[in-house]
């Protein structure tokens, strides 16, 4: 227990901060994922074959290639890509991208592919009559989407989105390879300096379990909220 003390003698405060970091990265990645889903879900549902192809390539590639490989691509390639874009605008100095941004972006793209599939499935399972009824009521495109389709989609999507959240949360452990100090990285550092890997990795496992457990409870509440009327 001494190992977990707060302050300079223990790793309690470091691990606490690392846990907050894991939560921050997961939420950021999930939001980035939603933005990607917002772009690619319409493309998937579009009647245009070319747009379909783009969206399908995105989800197929991301879901068929290991997360770690995607993270390496961003970790090693991110700096190069940003510097290339900057050089177009005439900036030629070395740019170092923050590990948080690279990591959240890499995980976000992965999470976005799963979210896209979830939203596609949810929208497709909404009864056609709902769209027609919205048309009959004379709602415009935005009203139709935000007032009629989205609330129903959310109800159907939340159970699956909670799976995506779990995957995203667990995937953030992989960002530790880029040096971002989240739970896994902090445990690695602590295990290295105390020579007690069994304790610290087991503790990391407990922290992850706690995070998944608490988030499940919160998501269940959300599920109840969005199932009102059913």
């Amino acid at each position: 227990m001494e190992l977990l003390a707060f302050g300079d003698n223990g790793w309690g405060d470091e691990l606490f901060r690392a846990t907050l970091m894991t939560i921050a990265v997961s939420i950021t990645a999930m939001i980035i994922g939603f933005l990607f889903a917002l772009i690619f879900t319409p493309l998937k549902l579009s009647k245009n074959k070319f747009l379909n192809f783009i969206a399908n390539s995105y989800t197929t590639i991301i879901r068929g290639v290991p997360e770690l490989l995607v993270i390496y691509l961003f970790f090693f390639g991110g700096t190069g890509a940003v510097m290339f874009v900057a050089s177009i605008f005439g900036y030629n100095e070395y740019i170092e991208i923050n590990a948080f941004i690279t990591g959240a972006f890499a995980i976000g793209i992965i999470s976005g592919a799963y979210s896209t599939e979830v939203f596609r499935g949810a929208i497709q399972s909404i009864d056609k009559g709902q769209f027609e009824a919205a048309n009959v009521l004379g709602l415009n495109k935005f009203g139709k989407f935000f007032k009629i389709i989205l609330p129903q989609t959310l109800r159907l999507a939340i159970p699956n989105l909670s799976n995506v959240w779990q995957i995203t949360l667990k995937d953030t452990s992989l960002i530790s390879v880029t040096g971002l100090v989240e739970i896994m990285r902090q445990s690695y550092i602590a295990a290295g300096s105390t020579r007690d890997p069994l304790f610290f990795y087991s503790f990391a496992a407990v922290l992850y379990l706690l995070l998944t457990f608490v988030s499940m409870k919160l998501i269940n509440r959300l599920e109840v909220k969005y199932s009102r009327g059913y």
Partner: protein
Amino acid sequence: MDLELMINSLPKLLNAAVITLKLLSVSLLIGLFIGLFFAILRLNKNIFVNRFAYGYSYVFRGTPLLVQIFIIYFGLGQIEYLRSTVLWVILKEPYWCAIIAFALNTGAYTSEILRSAFQTIKQGIIEAGKSLGISSKIIFYKIQIPIAIRQSLPAYGNEIILMMKGTSLASTVTIMDLTGVAKYIISTTFKPIEVFIVAGGIYLFMTFIIHNVIKFLEKKYSF
């Protein structure tokens, strides 16, 4: 785009893909038995047995695979007692540590897949077996298991693909699998995009094959 690098790295990456496939097939095989074992425990009416099996699947599904590998590879080696037993022969090899972690992980998911498959079998089928005078053991092995396997094929196919992606974590414990070699080439040449295209292409190809094999099996065993 450095085409030469892509062509030169292809044989190295293909060799590494063989290691990935080995890791995948061995851990899936062990994981299938672990999964079946725990699925049967989950169906047990004894609450302790039931809870134990649930706890196993909850812990392994609720924590990242990376933590599981690190606990087994770095953590277990710390226990002095283990070092003196025969188990140490296995546990000092990163290859076997990775396989143990993968097998336990996929076992947890497989047990959930099989459990839900067992639970969706219609009671009438089991009753029909009983009325024919078949012993409950034979009903289990000859009726319930084949139906459960068919029921769980689509979900198990997804699990195989997820596990294939999971084997990439073996590279974190010094195993030179497909991702390990890809990372090595990236960090020596600083050409991440080219290597990603080749390595990612190999992974996608394997995903494609697995997907189609499962589809074929689904068709073959559908009723």
